[in-house]
């Protein structure tokens, strides 16, 4: 069963279900229901309508922007039902077009062709945006904008547009009746626009702009409940924390432009392949770390992770969209897209930061009680996984995990949203329990998501996580002093299983702790259930190697050009680290294929064949070991969790454990005091610096200014006296003289016009007589 058929059948099933609901929903279905059904049923037609790749790309990103503008200007007052159907149409069409691109990518994969599209090579000339001219040399440097569409973009488009669409659908039910309903959909629109353009563009500068736009829309969405102080504070915190990362990103961009004189990703890669910066490894390192800083901010890696848990103040669908699936994946996408730019040192830093984030967030998640917070820390942990995978070179594993994680984490968030909705905005797990019977759909789908994230076999998370662990293990086997990465990631996997099942048990099993809320608990409307089901199916299937996306990832997702090019580039790099990592990755691919008995494609075989035979053993061993260990760890985590939190077989009292752990528990419960640490160090330090500067300003600069003022006052006093006594006397004397004679002369000017006429006439007559006299005198002479 090919992925195309899967997607098709899924859409048709979904459309049929929606149509069924529409026909039975009642006398008057709302416009949004109609639109949803129509879009889902007829969306695939668009696949054949928009043929040009660039046209598709433009439509994909501009449709949500259009919906944003319409909703911002006309949404609340001028459109029926707040204009949510406009957002639905826009994102629905975007999804269909994205699927059309994805479809081409899959087709290329199945026929063994290379799938790559760049606008400057395509049928449409790239668009020259602005040009700088060097005044000295007259050299003209154009900045060209365009699209860069390869299999990575195709995957990201599907993830972003798909989850965005499902979140839109979910929000129809979840946000019903909220104040600023249409503005919410407008915000979703601009978020979708910026995220889609971010994955589409071929230009670092545009990517940076979209990066900031994503930040802004995230700010708007987190602070959507503007009346809540905590929401406003969380929005501010997220925005400012991102600024720190974006500063690093900007510095990275400066270095990029300074060295390559272009922002075009393709040209940068070309220059790198030609060995542009081979002799300045430290610049390359800093450039990579700067760019990674941006990823740290957006993907909430360790030093800047503090904003993500607070961002849960936003509406839950937003959390699912932004803070679980798409926006936080932007950092991972950035590192993946710019993979050839980083060098070994940078990769090492990336790997350790990811690992630390993964383990740290996992431990925190154990102790939290807020259902969304648990999920938020879980997200942190999984993002750490991806970043660590990138760091160790498990490139396709990281993207694979990104995809599967997007689906099951979005599912988990939407499920938690459903739970919160059912319990009338109760978020504390200590007040939940026993919901399994009341909300069956939510329970089942959330269980699926949990199984997926815990790494239980045959669920998608198992495959992707297993690949990451294998990559880390292989790296550890080649470089034993970096084996700690693998151990930490393994531990984190176990903890993940533990706390996720803790969440399930506390929420859905046992006796209801809040009887009143439990009695009123109810399942959400169908618009909320449909996304859950769809996402649950995706959470199961997307990992199946030859059914879903997994196989696709094995071979085709490469950042640039063919695998051979990338491999060659990295093989040329002098250190063992990168080479090994890449060898591992390619090897995994090969192994995966042979394990499933498929004949692998020709270019892959070629690429793999370029590496040493010895690596195959390492890879094989690593994969098997990692698989066994990961199943083991996950199972033990689930069992431990059941023993602790499932009331039927409870053996361990969590409260006692907490008390036994004592200060360690406090440390973890308070999130390692990172926020407090920042408050004490950075904020306080800033305060101290500020005070010093203020004192400097007050005493020295102001003193200089005041002294200058006093000197001026003194001088001007002297000067004033001189002016009064000497200069003014002279002036007055002149004025008096003028006045004296003026009084005499002014009598001529009587103000009576007849006098003037008389005087003019008299003057005229006198002159004529004089002239005649003179003339007669001369003529007479």
């Amino acid at each position, binding site marked *: 069963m090919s992925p195309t058929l899967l997607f098709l059948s899924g859409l048709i099933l979904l459309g049929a279900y929606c149509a069924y609901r529409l026909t039975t929903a009642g006398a008057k279905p709302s416009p949004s229901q109609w639109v949803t059904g129509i879009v889902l049923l007829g969306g695939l037609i668009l696949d054949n309508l928009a043929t040009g790749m660039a046209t598709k790309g433009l439509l994909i990103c501009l449709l949500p922007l259009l919906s944003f503008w319409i909703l911002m200007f006309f949404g609340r007052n001028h459109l029926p039902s707040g204009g949510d159907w406009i957002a639905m149409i826009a994102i629905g069409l975007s999804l269909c077009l994205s699927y059309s691109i994805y479809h081409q990518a899959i087709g290329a994969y199945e026929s063994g062709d290379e799938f790559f599209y760049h606008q400057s090579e395509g049928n449409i000339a790239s668009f020259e945006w602005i040009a700088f001219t060097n005044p000295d040399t007259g050299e003209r440097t154009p900045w060209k904008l365009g699209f860069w569409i390869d299999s990575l973009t195709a995957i990201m488009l599907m993830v972003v547009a798909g989850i965005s669409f499902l979140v839109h659908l979910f929000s129809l039910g979840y946000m019903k009746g909220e104040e600023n309903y249409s503005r919410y959909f407008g915000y979703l629109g601009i978020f979708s626009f910026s995220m889609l353009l971010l994955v589409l563009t071929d230009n670092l500068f545009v990517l940076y702009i979209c990066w900031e736009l994503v930040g802004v829309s995230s700010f708007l969405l987190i602070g959507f409940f503007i009346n809540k102080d905590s929401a406003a504070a969380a929005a501010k915190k997220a925005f400012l924390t991102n600024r720190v990362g974006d500063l690093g990103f900007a510095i990275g961009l400066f270095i990029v432009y300074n060295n390559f004189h272009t922002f075009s990703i393709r040209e940068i890669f070309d220059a790198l392949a030609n060995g542009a910066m081979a002799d300045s490894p430290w610049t390359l390192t800093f450039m990579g770390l700067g760019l990674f800083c941006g990823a740290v901010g957006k993907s909430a890696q360790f030093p800047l992770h503090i904003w993500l848990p607070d961002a849960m103040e936003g509406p839950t669908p937003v959390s699912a969209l932004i803070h679980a699936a798409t926006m936080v994946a932007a950092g991972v996408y950035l590192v993946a897209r710019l993979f050839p730019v980083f060098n070994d040192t940078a990769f090492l830093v990336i790997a350790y930061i990811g690992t630390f984030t993964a383990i740290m967030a996992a431990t925190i998640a154990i102790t939290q009680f807020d259902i969304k917070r648990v999920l938020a820390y879980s997200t942190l942990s999984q993002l750490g996984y991806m970043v660590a995978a990138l760091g160790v070179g498990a490139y396709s594993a990281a993207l694979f995990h990104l995809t599967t994680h997007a689906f099951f984490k979005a599912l988990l968030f939407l499920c938690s949203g459903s739970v919160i909705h059912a319990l009338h905005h109760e978020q504390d797990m200590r007040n939940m329990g026993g919901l399994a019977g009341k909300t069956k759909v939510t329970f089942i789908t959330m269980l699926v998501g949990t199984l997926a994230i815990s790494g239980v076999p045959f669920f998608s998370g198992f495959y992707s996580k297993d690949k990451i662990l294998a990559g880390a293990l292989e790296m550890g086997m080649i470089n034993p002093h970096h084996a700690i990465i693998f151990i930490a990631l393994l531990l984190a996997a176990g903890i993940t299983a533990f706390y996720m099942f803790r969440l399930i048990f506390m929420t859905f099993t046992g006796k209801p702790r809040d009887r009143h809320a439990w009695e009123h608990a109810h399942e959400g409307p169908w618009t909320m259930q449909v996304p859950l089901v769809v996402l649950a199916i995706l959470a199961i299937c997307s990992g199946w190697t030859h059914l879903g996306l997994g196989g696709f990832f094995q071979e085709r997702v490469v950042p640039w050009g063919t695998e051979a090019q990338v491999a060659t580039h990295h093989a040329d790099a002098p250190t063992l680290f990168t080479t090994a990592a890449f060898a591992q990755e390619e090897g995994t691919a090969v192994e995966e294929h042979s394990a499933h008995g498929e004949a692998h494609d020709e270019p892959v075989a070629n690429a793999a064949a370029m590496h040493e035979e010895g690596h195959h053993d390492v890879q094989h061993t690593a994969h098997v070991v990692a698989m066994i260990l990961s199943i083991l760890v996950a199972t033990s985590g689930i069992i431990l969790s059941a023993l602790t939190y499932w009331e039927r077989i409870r053996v361990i009292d969590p409260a006692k454990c907490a008390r036994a752990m004592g200060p360690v528990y406090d440390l973890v419960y308070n999130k390692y005091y990172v926020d407090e640490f920042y408050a004490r160090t950075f904020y306080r330090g800033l305060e101290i610096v500020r005070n010093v500067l203020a004192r400097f300003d007050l005493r020295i600069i102001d003193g200089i200014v005041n002294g200058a003022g006093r000197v001026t006052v003194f001088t001007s006093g002297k000067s004033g006296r001189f002016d009064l006594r000497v200069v003014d006397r002279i002036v007055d004397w002149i004025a008096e003289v003028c006045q004296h004679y003026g009084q005499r002369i002014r009598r001529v000017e009587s103000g009576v016009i007849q006098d003037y006429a*008389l005087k003019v006439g008299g003057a005229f007559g006198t002159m004529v007589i004089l002239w005649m006299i003179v003339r007669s005198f001369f003529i007479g002479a």
Partner: protein
Amino acid sequence: MFDFIFFVFAFVCVGSALFVAFTPNVVHAALGLASTFATLAGFYILLGADFLAITQIAIYVGGILVLMLFGIMYTHNIARVSGEQVMMQVGPALLVVVLTLFTLVATILSTAWPAKEVGPPQPTADRIGVLLLTDYLLPFEVAGILLLVALVGAVVIAQTPVRKSIEESID
């Protein structure tokens, strides 16, 4: 006959102008001015400028003189109907004017004017019209604009504020 009519007109013209200069009554002066204008129109006919003559009557007598009469009536109470006017500095003025007149007349008489044989007068209206719309089109348009500006300006200057007048009428 031409000479006879000229001298009659010249006599009436200068006489009525002197009347304007020396009469103490403003309204009488205005009528004297009307007489001057009318005789000037006669001069124009004598000079073959029939169009100018009618224009003189229409504009000066029908327009400007009526305006002046209006001005006089607006600025003089009906009880002061005689409108006695005092003259000032008559002596110096006479001196200056006689001096100027002497100069002018002396110049006119001492100049050798070209002696041109004048034919019978031709109709002028069409020729003036052609000139105004060809050679003098720009001055013609400018004059039109000037008249419009003068019209609006005169209204603006002379009007009393409407609201004020309404309030007064209510009171």
